[in-house]
């Protein structure tokens, strides 16, 4: 029976991944899956509403799930529909994240009134918006590096509220009760209103009421135009220039000239009417129309937008994360029992998870039209991907569960980091001009990132060596030798890639700024990794360290790499600042401390190591 264990595990894993690919079934009559595919232009590209909903939720409340006051759980697209069409309802959902007690105090809300003690509804905060604005303005005046945690949080909360308001004013006017009727009335009153305004300008007799109504509408439209976030209205029929998408406010203001409300806006107004009225048939018909009429005109962008909606729903990185945990556990247990079967099962699952992340990364690359690494988030995905790839090779060669263990751990850790990095918004962002070079992004950034992942991998392999050696009896001579060779080989690989990557970075810098090397923090970070790997290799060649020393140094490589990856970015935040104590900074400090502790453990005399007690290895 246990012979079939690896196959069984593989099948289960594949079935799990397959299930995420299947289109999600709509839970009600409303086809929210179709709604989530409706495209809008925002931040430089056409996205499905699904991406807007998910990234907005991550920014506003730090997670994608929304719980209504009556305990129902909403899909991101469902929440967005409420935001756009039934804002009064959305205002009662506790979605605005506030993580600082001083800020909570200032807003006089109590943690126990919030969801999870930290998420509050717009209704709860509404009264205090002027105070948030006032405090955020004060904090804006302070140099970023010198802001206190309170000031930082106030600015963050203001930005969250801002995004919230922007979303709310993307389709409907503020305080609109029945947008469709209001638009119809406006259109009807428009001819007379225009006549009245023209008459007033000429100083002739006019209806003061008509002028007043027009002015009120114009004010509300300009408010929408100012909040300008989602560009929901595509350009006129014969125009396929992506830059000509406009926001609803601007287009509504145009109505004074054209005399007719734009058709897309009318469709959205009807859609909202159907949503509020529970008319699923009409809602479904309109979402399909909004989607399909653009499918031809913006064919390439829409193909991407549709795939993106599917990609969002499948969440390949989250499923891989669970698989990596399973791999790690299986591989560790394989050292205790059933090494063959569990080991092979872990390997197959590792391969499966790796393929899922590969597909995920490739999809992102295709969506963005870019090499794999374009920002901190994608670097995290890629570091994990490259490290797990190396682990697969190691496991294929050595078949001792070590590659799988390391792969599971590194894969999980990097995806977890990626998840936290995704909280800042859309991860498929536009590249600033200086970075807009696929050639350099594809060579320098990729190489340097592979260097990072190899250095981390060497460090994790070393941790396995140290833990198994000190705390268990499982590190026999053969395993110890194999691990030493692995770490040595990976350090060589890391040196090669980090050196070439750093140097390519220098060449890029020479190409775009005119200097090969500028001692900039990020450059120095990369250099430190190269130097440290060179130190390990030279110390080993010079016989200064043997196996244990090699492992200890490799663990220090984890610290060096983390510093380069994250520490250098935090420098911008400023060492002087009280706000320096960010959560990411704490995480970094904790990680560094843990690695130092492991190094201290490694320094325990060899005869005290469980594995070497009886027969000391030649370490």
């Amino acid at each position, binding site marked *: 029976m246990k012979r079939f264990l690896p196959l069984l595990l593989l099948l289960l894993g594949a079935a799990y991944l397959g299930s995420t690919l299947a289109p999600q079934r709509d839970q009600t009559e409303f086809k929210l899956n179709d709604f989530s595919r409706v495209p809008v232009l925002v931040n430089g590209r056409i996205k499905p509403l699904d991406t807007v909903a998910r990234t907005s939720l991550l920014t506003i409340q730090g997670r994608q799930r929304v719980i209504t006051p009556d305990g129902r759980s909403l899909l991101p697209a469902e929440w967005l529909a409420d935001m756009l069409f039934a804002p009064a309802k959305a205002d009662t959902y506790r979605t605005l994240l506030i993580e600082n007690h001083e800020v909570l105090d200032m807003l006089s809300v109590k943690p126990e009134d919030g969801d999870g003690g930290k998420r509050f509804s717009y209704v709860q905060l509404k009264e205090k918006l002027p105070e948030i604005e006032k405090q955020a303005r004060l904090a804006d005046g302070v140099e970023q590096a010198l802001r206190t945690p309170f000031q930082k949080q106030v600015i963050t909360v203001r930005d969250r509220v801002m995004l919230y308001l922007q979303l709310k004013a993307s389709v409907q006017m503020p305080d609109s009760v029945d947008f469709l009727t209001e638009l119809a009335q406006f259109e009807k009153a428009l001819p007379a209103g225009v006549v009245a305004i023209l008459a007033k300008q000429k100083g002739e007799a006019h209806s003061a009421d008509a002028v007043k109504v027009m002015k009120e509408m114009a004010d509300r439209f300009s408010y929408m135009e100012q909040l300008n976030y989602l560009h929901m209205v595509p350009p006129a029929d014969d125009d396929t220039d992506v830059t000509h998408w406009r926001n609803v406010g601007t287009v509504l203001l145009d109505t004074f000239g054209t005399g007719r409300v734009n058709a897309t806006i009318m469709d959205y107004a009807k859609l909202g009417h159907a949503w509020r009225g529970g008319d699923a048939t009409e809602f479904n018909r309109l979402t399909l129309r909004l989607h399909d009429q653009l499918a031809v005109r913006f064919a390439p962008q829409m193909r991407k937008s549709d795939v993106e909606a599917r990609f969002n729903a499948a969440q390949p990185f989250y499923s891989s994360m669970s698989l990596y945990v399973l791999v790690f556990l299986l591989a560790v247990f394989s050292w205790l029992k059933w090494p063959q079967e569990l080991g092979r099962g872990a390997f197959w699952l590792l391969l499966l998870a790796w393929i899922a992340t590969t597909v995920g990364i490739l999809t992102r690359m295709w969506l963005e039209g870019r090499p794999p690494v374009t920002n901190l988030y994608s670097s995290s995905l890629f570091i994990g991907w490259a490290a797990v790839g190396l682990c697969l090779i190691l496991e294929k060669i050595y078949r001792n569960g070590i590659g799988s263990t390391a792969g599971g751990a590194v894969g999980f850790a990097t995806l977890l980091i990626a998840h936290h990095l995704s909280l800042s918004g859309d991860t498929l962002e536009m590249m600033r001009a200086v970075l*807009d070079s696929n050639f350099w992004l594809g060579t320098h950034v990729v190489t340097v990132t592979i260097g990072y992942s190899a250095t981390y991998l060497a460090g994790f392999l070393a941790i396995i060596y140290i833990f198994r050696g000190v705390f268990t009896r499982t590190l026999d001579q053969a395993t110890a030798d194999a691990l030493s060779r692995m770490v040595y080989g990976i350090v060589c690989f890391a040196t090669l890639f980090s050196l070439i990557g750093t140097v390519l970075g220098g060449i890029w810098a020479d190409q775009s700024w005119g200097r090969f*090397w500028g001692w900039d923090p990020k450059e120095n970070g990369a250099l430190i990794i190269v130097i440290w790997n060179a130190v390990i290799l030279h110390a080993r060649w010079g016989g200064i360290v043997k196996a244990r020393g090699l492992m200890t140094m490799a663990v220090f490589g984890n610290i060096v790499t983390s510093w380069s990856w994250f520490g250098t970015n935090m420098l911008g935040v400023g*060492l002087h600042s009280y706000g320096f104590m960010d959560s990411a900074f704490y995480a970094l400090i904790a990680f560094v401390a843990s690695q130092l502790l492991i190094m201290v453990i490694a320094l325990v005399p060899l005869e005290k190591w469980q594995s070497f007690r009886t027969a000391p290895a030649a370490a």
Partner: protein
Amino acid sequence: MNELTRHFRDFFVSLQLTVALLILSLILVFAATLDQVNLGIWAVQAKYFHSFFVLWQVPNTEFALPVFPGGYLIGGFLLANLLAAHIYRFQLTWRKTGIQLAHSGLILLLIGELVSGLMQRDSNMRLDTGETRNYSESFRDNELAILDRTNPAYDEVVAVPEGVLADKGVIAHPKLPFTIRVKEYYPNASLGMRDPAAGAGGPVATSGLGTRVMMLPAPMTYKQDERNMPGAFLEVVGPTGPLGTWIVSPQIGMPQTFAFDGRTWELALRFRRYYHPFALTLIKFSHDKYPGTEIPKNFSSRVRVKSDDGKDDREVLIFMNNPLRYGGQTFYQAGFENNDHVTILQVVRNPGWLLPYIACIMMGVGLVIQFGLTLAGFIRKRAAAAAAVAGSE
């Protein structure tokens, strides 16, 4: 070979020295990175990398103690260590080519960095649309320019480095019929309207703009995006006595002139200028944004290059990641101002710019050979071991 020379040789060729130097350089780079928060990138380079020792200023004193080896010292020793080890262990075998190539590349890279450190000169050129300039201006250095403007066709310029002003002495030059006495100098100062009610103290300007404007000394700034604006009170002294006291500062836009000896003179403390034997004219600067955002997508400047010798007169497009290399200088798109009307080009002269490219190729190829050989050996050994296991079964 006597004992001492052998010790000496063993020290310089040892891998222990290599490891020690690498660790020292790692600490140096790390400390320098942290200190950028306090000192800014330029001061850090001077303090940590372009120095033999990192000095620590004993608080409240003039003394500075060397506390750590600086970039030149560590780099120098690394170079010596590399060269010595290479010469001593040199073997012309296949197995060693990779390592040798990589290390030769490293030697070249270190030399290249030294050349850059000593010879590289950064400046920038700010061009308004339609404007032509044949000079670029330094980021950090300033100079006192004394111009003879009598002839409308050209100016005769005597340029004095800022350092001379800082010494607060008397400036004399054969081309000048007068001397200049530096009455006061501030490394950084701002200008404000002169308040007649303000109490006396310090020098007083008697001529030029200084009669209406006063100078407020400010602390030095080390921020990367700010520059120090020096200021000085200068007394011009002719053969028969003082002609007046002027204030000078790069912040003063209008020319301050005076007549003496039948000629017209101008005093200006300005960003240090580097003149080129060619001129650039900005034809058009353009920049695009991504739709619906403020994120810049690209910047580009179309410029006309015209050399003084008349051999070149052509249009060039400079954009991100695509600089113009001309006349030993490289022009990069660095920024823009004033609603896309002004372009800012960074101008770099670095005679050693090619060295890193060569060094990189050598190191890359060397490491690929070295690790490739190791990997090949590893695979061969495993194949042999696998065959042995298969044979014994």
